[in-house]
């Protein structure tokens, strides 16, 4: 048991460090914490540099512009890259989920057309799955695709998607549509890729409760796509989407922002009970201990995952606990910090509130993090069913034609 790299890993790390030292940005810039694309130019520049050097998708094969590397090398790069003030990465949904799906199901010319520009950050992709009628239940999608009446074989897409990350600056997307409402829900779906600049597409950023706009509503009105844009067979959309979703839990990271160290710092200077600094308050100290232990538990769980990767093994199910723990902690820590501030806690003016209102940001963003990329409840179902092997839920809609499914709001 040790924390050292193998000789091969150490050599790779040295190579990565040298490249980053020569190429990575050294100065901070005003980023976009809510992912609204305000730092897109910086993101694209950095992505192009990484792609030119083969670091954009290390595990991709060389003919796609990767290094044919292994997952541990990607982890090493991510660790080293995180030491620099690099801009946010709006490309990961495309590179991690959409493009691999396209590459798996599209023909060679399509693959050749899209892989390079996505890798270099020239084109951005979004994933159009969630709908107003189906968040956790993605297979309940209502957005429909019907054959164009002109006999061209083209499809016309109409409906609405929601919570689409980055749709407002995306060039392409993959969309799952209802093509047959007369069969049960999983069997009547079909997947397409499409140009987000097509006529009939309207993107409206969602004004989140946190104030930012990282997600969007996307409206489709008779958007025409060619049959050659279909990914997989007609009616096979669910199977195709599983390929995409398999990668989602890896792409949706844990919580960032204020943690136990920031809380401890703030607690040193804020007066607590009886005029003593809040850090002397035992109720807060117990909380600090709990957060520290959770954070360390996740860190060392990642170390266990790294170990499996380093040995060329598939990481075990322990990697599935991250978001449940970190999102809940983010909410609790933010709220406890506000309570520590007492009456002052209602002020979220960055000029006045500690950490430029970072605790307030945590409090207001945590509800979204507890939902995005699988709600707490869905993730617990996944642990119960896939890790512990407990039975799936009884599906009352399994053998019912989609058009006959009961619907509420």
């Amino acid at each position, binding site marked *: 048991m040790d924390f050292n790299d193998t000789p091969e890993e150490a050599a790779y790390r040295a190579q990565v460090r040298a490249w980053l030292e020569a190429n990575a940005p050294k100065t901070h810039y005003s980023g976009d914490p809510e992912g609204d694309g305000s730092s897109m130019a910086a993101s694209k520049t950095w992505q192009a540099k990484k792609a030119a050097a083969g670091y954009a998708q290390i595990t991709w094969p060389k003919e796609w512009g990767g290094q044919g590397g292994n997952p541990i090398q990607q982890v090493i790069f991510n660790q080293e890259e995180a030491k620099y003030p690099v801009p946010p990465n709006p490309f990961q949904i495309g590179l991690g989920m959409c493009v691999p799906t396209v590459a798996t199901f599209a023909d060679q010319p399509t693959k050749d057309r899209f892989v390079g520009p996505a890798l270099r950050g020239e084109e951005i992709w979004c994933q159009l799955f969630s709908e107003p009628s189906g968040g956790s239940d993605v297979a309940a999608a209502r957005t429909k695709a019907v054959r164009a009446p002109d006999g061209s074989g083209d499809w016309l897409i109409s409906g609405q998607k929601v919570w689409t990350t980055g749709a407002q600056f995306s060039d392409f997307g993959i969309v799952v549509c209802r093509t047959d409402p007369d069969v049960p829900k999983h069997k009547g779906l079909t997947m397409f890729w499409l140009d987000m600049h097509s006529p009939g597409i309207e993107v409206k950023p969602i004004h989140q409760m946190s104030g930012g706009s990282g997600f969007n509503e996307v409206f489709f009105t008779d958007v025409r796509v060619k049959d050659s844009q279909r990914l997989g067979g007609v009616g096979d959309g669910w199977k195709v989407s599983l390929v995409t979703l398999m990668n989602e839990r890896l792409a949706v990271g844990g919580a960032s922002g204020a943690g136990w*160290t920031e809380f401890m710092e703030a607690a040193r200077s804020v007066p607590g009970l009886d005029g003593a600094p809040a850090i002397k308050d035992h109720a807060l100290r117990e909380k600090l201990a709990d957060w520290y232990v959770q954070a360390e538990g996740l860190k060392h769980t990642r170390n266990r995952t790294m170990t499996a990767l380093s040995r060329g093994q598939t990481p075990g199910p322990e990697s599935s606990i991250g978001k449940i723990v970190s999102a809940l902690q983010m909410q609790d820590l933010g709220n406890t910090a506000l309570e520590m501030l007492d009456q002052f806690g209602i002020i979220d003016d960055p000029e006045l509130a500690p950490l430029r209102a970072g605790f307030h940001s945590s409090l207001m963003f945590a509800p979204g993090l507890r939902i995005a990329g699988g709600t707490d409840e869905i993730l617990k179902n996944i642990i119960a069913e896939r890790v512990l092997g407990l039975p799936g839920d009884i599906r009352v809609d399994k053998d019912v034609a989609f058009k006959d499914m009961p619907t509420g709001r």
Partner: protein
Amino acid sequence: MNFDFSDDQKALKSEARRFLEANASTERVRKVLDDDARPYDEALWKAVGQQGWLGAAIPEEFGGLGLGHLELCVIAEELGRAVAPIPFASTVYFVAEAVMLAGSDEQKSYLLPKIAAGEIIGCIATSEGPGVTTAATLKATVSDGKLSGVKLPVTDGDIGNVALVLAKENGKPGLFLVDLDDAGVTREVLKTLDPTRDAARLIFKDAPVRRIGGAGEGMELVEQVFDRAAVLLAFEQCGGADRCLEMAKAYALERYAFGRVIASYQAIKHKLADMYVKNELGRSNAYYGAWALNTNAPELPVAASAARIAASEAFWFASKENIQTHGGIGFTWEMDCHLFYRRSRQLSLVAGAPRVWKERLVSQLERRNAA
């Protein structure tokens, strides 16, 4: 990065599990539970000694196997799974560790071979009554090499041959080795929450002692010993917590209610998922503690605290929610659930309660972050 046990250590773990399944079934544990006259499972204690486990981390020159603490961790996990009714923790995690840490050459040569051979049982005596023992509350006193005072509870104090006793000498705390067979020692068995792990009141009246470690360094030494024990106890707790999750899962998969197995209800699935999350957090923290213990890293006090807090929480949660998953049958004496519920409390209290460790942890983090 190699944050895992080696293949050899995993093989030892499998071997330990097979051995304990054969020699420490819950039927065997119940023989201690149900018989007030049986303080521990003597046959299991002997067998464990023959396996060499008592000396796993004791150097070969002192009669041990000289393996290391990672090997001791995997054994501890299996002992926790089995709720083994033997004085392993008292003897190995506390006394042997203290002697290896601070004992003189003579103390090491005298005690370690006897511990490794299973010839003596050790115990640690710090508490004197309700609440946290500190230098200010400490009453037991050593003068002219003789100890007087009362210690309770002392886990395995009723069966121990030698005790590590925290007492004041010249007004300052020290740690002392006491032969419990001396005429100056009286023992009374206490009624305890976990009858598979006995405890006693020890009354000392001019009992001869030998100090271990420096004069006036008793509190610091106890902290160091507790750090080491905390990591090993955390592995016992992880073992117990995993077993509770397995029991809950097995029962939920065979118990029907409203026409289907209760494992198909989300209320139960989410409960078991919560157990899994806590168990993984406990395990990952325990692994880091194992690394710190094995390498004697300066991070040990922080790592041990985190391991103890996380593993205590995991075992407590898993043991109580295992009963809840079982429903009424889980509340019966005949069902094994309460063995784990009792042991989870015993393990969480024996080296100081989690809230004490949380305070220790935060104090250390404060110092570390100020530096």
